[in-house]
């Protein structure tokens, strides 16, 4: 009974140990450059289009919501600033993370899970090659790199989408929208968005790799691994986002506050 109750703690511990192994694998040579480039290209190719498509309505919704709210306060001239803050600090890293986890992470978990049940990973270990160094490290780095760039893309697309909706639908003035950019937002807001994207990419890739490499019980096991990896990643991402946001708001005081 206790052993079943404590099982999640064991899993969490294993996941953390796996993350440490990956950390150690980062510094082991030779670095798998080829695998890294292939994976980065692959993850980018499955995430770019969906991310762009998600970013437009994401930016629009924020613009509508914030715009409406701010109008009631009578502070229309700050609409641009508020939606830039929301997009860059929260929406962009979260949107990136959802797609990295949903598209990239599920692909990683499925790939590694299939290799696991076909005994490819065992074969690799027996051939004297550490799958963590050979397969997982390049995937983790690729995920982080792609998340970093996707975050930039979501920021741009999101802000542009917000601009369009504010100006076209809410009768905002283009000048006021652009001019207020720097009224509340500041450079560290951009940095924290990028740091978040890196952390989310890291978490998504590590959870997906861990789940994939521990898939068990045939093809159904692979399906389960993919499913679990996406769910666990989402949970972790939102917790991590909360923690990072809190730390950031404590460390960097809001402008004009």
């Amino acid at each position, binding site marked *: 009974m206790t052993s079943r109750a404590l099982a999640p703690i064991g899993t969490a511990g294993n996941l953390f140990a796996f993350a440490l192994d990956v950390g150690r694998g980062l510094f082991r040579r030779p670095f798998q450059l080829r695998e890294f480039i292939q994976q980065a290209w692959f993850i980018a190719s499955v995430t770019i289009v969906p991310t762009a498509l998600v970013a437009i309505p994401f930016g629009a919704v924020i613009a509508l919501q914030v715009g409406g709210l701010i109008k009631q306060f009578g502070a229309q001239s700050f609409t641009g600033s508020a939606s830039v803050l929301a997009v860059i600090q929260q929406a962009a890293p979260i949107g990136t993370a959802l797609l990295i986890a949903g598209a990239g992470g599920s692909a990683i978990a499925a790939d590694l899970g299939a*290799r696991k049940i076909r*005994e490819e990973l*065992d074969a690799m270990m*027996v*051939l*004297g090659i*550490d799958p963590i160094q050979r397969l997982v490290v390049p995937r983790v780095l690729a995920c982080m790199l792609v998340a970093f760039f996707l975050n930039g893309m979501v920021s741009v697309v999101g802000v542009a989408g917000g601009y369009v909706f504010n100006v076209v639908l809410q009768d905002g003035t283009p000048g006021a929208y652009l001019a207020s950019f720097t009224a509340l937002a500041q450079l560290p807001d951009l940095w924290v968005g990028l740091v978040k994207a890196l952390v989310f990419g890291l978490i998504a890739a590590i959870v997906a790799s861990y789940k994939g490499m521990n898939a068990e019980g045939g093809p159904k096991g692979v399906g389960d691994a993919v499913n679990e990896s996406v769910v666990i990643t989402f949970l972790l991402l939102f917790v991590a986002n909360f923690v990072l946001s809190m730390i950031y708001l404590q460390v960097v005081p809001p402008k004009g506050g």
Partner: protein
Amino acid sequence: MGVEIQVNDLSKSFGKQLIWGDVTLTVPAGEICVMLGPSGTGKSVFLKTLIGLLKPDKGSIVIEGTDIASCSERELYEIRKLFGVLFQDGAMFGSMNLYDNVAFPLREHTRKSESEVRDIVMEKMDLVGLLGAEDKLPGEISGGMRKRAGLARALVLDPEIVLFDEPDSGLDPVRTAFLNQLIVDLNAQIDATFLIVTHDINTARTVPDNIGLLYHRHLAMFGPREQLLSSEEPVVRQFLNAQRVGPIGMSEEKDADELAAEAGQELPPLPPIPLQLDPSNGVPRRSQRPAGEWCRENGVTPPPGSFESSNAGLAPGA
């Protein structure tokens, strides 16, 4: 050539369930051994423990002075370079063609030029009869070809120990016969230590120098081929002759009632011991012993008709 594997008092369990315990045996250098056992007795687990993919609960596995059960990860990766393993389904890397699969260990572990790699890969592909199929993907070929390709990859680093996980599962009798001949020829050629895990009796009766039998969570017997084939021990006898009468039941071991019901039944006589499979060039392998030598030395009378043909006591056609 070839390296000895000393297994001492090895036990492995998953959770509370003991898979096998107190397994002690020595796989002699350069010889072919077969590990037999009913389905589900942990033969594959034994194999995976030998290469350090699974950690045993207690005991040691000593290869060239290193204990695999307790050595560091670094030493493990080092010692694994002595091994070639043929997995059940070949375990080819699905994203690479056969050529890249076989070349993979060379590219990862050696600094050979691409032309040297090509020579070695082609030599091994030729050995397993896969010349001309280099550009195929593992998904495009039959199970038998995948196995042979897996064998080529296992051999590419000139291993001292070759492990076979059910080389005959899913193969037709003809392919199995060819594969068995290939195993014997390979052993004659490279003198490595071979350990085959299987439950194919024809393979077990004709190929190896030694046979081991895992049954009921322990190693029932391990010894020279002739010792087990002439053994009167009920489990060994039942399994090696594929009979229903004996302690092994359909699901696990039989219960007392079933055994009591069998008490009066007379066991069929032991079938004759077949000749061991010779390498195809006819020159005996270095570790091969003359037929009947063990029986003579140990004063055991082999069943009548033994050592007269190479398919005595086998399923017809084998």
